């Protein structure tokens, strides 16, 4: 190669067209899917020892799942036209499939959440309070029904699988962005989502939950497992890129390898995976706050890097585009707003259904048999 220097004098900067709203959406919907998966043993498989953790995971699934579509809608530049998705048949577009999967998933999630929490609604309906009637109404006159939970669990699992599939593939099919165009991306989204959900469970355990030590230890073990999967995917991706075995992965790596900012991000990402992994394995008790916060942060960072970072790589121009986080709704306000919505949903849900007190062995207090006359008011 001759000694050539190319200096770009005039070119266009293409702004990031997927905004921080998109980061929030992929983060929240991922955590919701992760929450569903973590809740299944305790509820759908009726393993009572998993119930306390499953309950927190269910709260993660519900609060994140309900906040996510708001972020998604806000990422459309014409949100009022969202119905345009539903009057066409566009099977070549993964986003179009997503517009079908999201309501299916959210619908199934609400049904599953209700089926799981029905027992608690019913129990609240038996307490002498002014709201007892409302609780009984919400419980639709019944308590725990494991068959219903299992059936709804199957539905929500199918919905979660479709959402995990579409959110990953939607981005991975974009051949124009080598960083996105990898079969690892859907797996990376899923594994980081699981880690993030486990992290949020650990945080909720210390805040709205009962600071249950067994939940913490189990949550940390799950987190370590998810982080191991994250490292495996990341390692394979890196190896494919470095070894040059696959031209696409080599191109992806090459597109960012020269950038100092990207190297810092990479080191940061590795640290935010390895550190909580080591802590979760070595000291699973008493560290839930720390590992949880790092894990949630790292799941968010991954999406920020993929979406916002990925869009700063020009497709034709030299170097990188600058990205400055705007303060308004397209930036900071969007991030804070979605976080606020999530917090509101959390407060709402945990006010309506406060964490039940549990006997020391972690099993449920026995409930009266189905159909018992309920004294109230």
């Amino acid at each position, binding site marked *: 190669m*001759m*000694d*050539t*220097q*190319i*200096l*770009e*004098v*005039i*070119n*266009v*900067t*293409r*702004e990031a*067209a*997927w*905004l921080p709203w998109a980061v929030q959406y992929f983060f929240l919907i991922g955590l919701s899917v992760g929450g569903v998966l973590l809740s299944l043993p305790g509820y759908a498989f009726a393993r009572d020892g998993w119930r306390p953790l499953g309950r927190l995971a269910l709260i993660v699934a519900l609060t994140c799942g309900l906040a996510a579509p708001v972020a998604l809608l806000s*990422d*459309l*530049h*014409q*949100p*009022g*036209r*969202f119905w*345009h*998705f539903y*009057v*066409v048949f*566009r099977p*070549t*577009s*993964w*986003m*179009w499939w*997503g*517009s079908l999967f999201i309501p299916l998933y959210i619908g199934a999630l609400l049904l599953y959440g209700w089926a799981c929490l029905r027992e608690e609604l019913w129990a609240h309906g038996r307490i002498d309070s002014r709201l007892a009637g409302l609780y009984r109404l919400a419980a639709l006159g019944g308590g725990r029904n494991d068959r219903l939970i299992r059936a709804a669990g199957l539905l929500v699992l199918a919905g979660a699988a479709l959402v995990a599939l579409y959110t990953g593939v*939607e981005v991975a099919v*974009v*051949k*124009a*962005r080598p960083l*996105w165009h990898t079969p690892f991306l859907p797996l990376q989204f899923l594994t980081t989502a699981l880690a993030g959900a486990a992290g949020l469970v650990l945080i909720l355990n210390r805040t709205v939950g009962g600071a249950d030590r067994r939940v913490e230890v189990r949550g940390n073990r799950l987190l370590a497992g998810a982080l191991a999967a994250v490292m495996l995917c990341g390692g394979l991706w890196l190896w494919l890129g470095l070894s040059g075995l696959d031209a696409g992965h080599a191109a992806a790596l090459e*597109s960012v390898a020269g950038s100092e900012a990207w190297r810092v991000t990479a080191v940061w990402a590795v640290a935010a995976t390895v550190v909580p992994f080591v802590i979760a394995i070595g000291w699973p008790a008493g560290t839930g706050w720390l590992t949880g916060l790092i894990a949630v942060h790292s799941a968010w960072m991954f999406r920020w890097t993929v979406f916002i970072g990925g*869009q700063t790589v*020009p*497709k*034709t*121009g*030299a*170097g*990188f*585009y*600058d990205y*400055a986080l*705007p*303060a*308004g*709704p*397209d930036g900071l306000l969007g991030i804070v707003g979605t976080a606020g919505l999530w917090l509101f949903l959390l407060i709402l849900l945990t006010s309506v259904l406060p964490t039940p007190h549990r006997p020391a062995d972690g099993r449920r207090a026995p409930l009266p048999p189905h159909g018992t006359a309920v004294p109230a008011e």
Partner: protein
Amino acid sequence: MDRSRRNFCLGAGAAAVGAATLAAAPSDAAPSGTVAGVAAARTGGDPAHRWAMVVDVRKCVGCQACTVACIMENDVPENSFRTIVSTYEVTEQDKAGSYMLPRLCNHCEDPPCIPVCPTGATFQRTDGIVVVDNTVCVGCAYCVQACPYDARFINHNSQTADKCTFCVHRVDAGLLPACVETCVGGARVFGDLKDPASAVSRLVREADPKVLKPEQGTQPRVFYIGLDPRFQGKVDGTPTLWRPSAHTERSHAGKEHA
């Protein structure tokens, strides 16, 4: 070249006028589409033509007259561009020179921006021109991601996807695209690939033009004569000294720093 451009005007006019049933709307904010409008099959254009452009980069003087003409013709918002002449300083063995590369939508034969569109707002007319119906587009920007050429952007007046349309409204009226009409160096040649006698057909046949990023399999219908391979894909160089950018100045309306 000039003669061919004029020939195009005279020859194509009669055939094209009235043939189009759907012209891409210019970039004004438009009301939401009707159900019928959204669901309708989107075609338009005359299948007897296949419009294309040949850019002879050796003739481009980098004056950006095309950039400005496009902005005026299509009411492109401030700091957004449907076409721009990327300009590079190339230093080789202590000798510095300029390299100009006019960029625009390639109106690809196999455009990756179309299959991803969840609403069908982006479509290809039967004459090959790729357009966006901005009364249907939801502004999801999936197409912006999918285009390998950074040819698309979100127009913040209409809040929908925007890009070069080959000046479809002019073509349908038998006129040349504004950038071609105004090109000082005669570097941009526009015409019909289905007409073997057209200037673009002849150039494609005889001048062995190249396309950008051929490995993407998009089959661009904007060809380049004198395309330096170092500029065929993502340019490996020092990023620009000056890029139009508004994101520091504006808050909401100024999402763009295109």
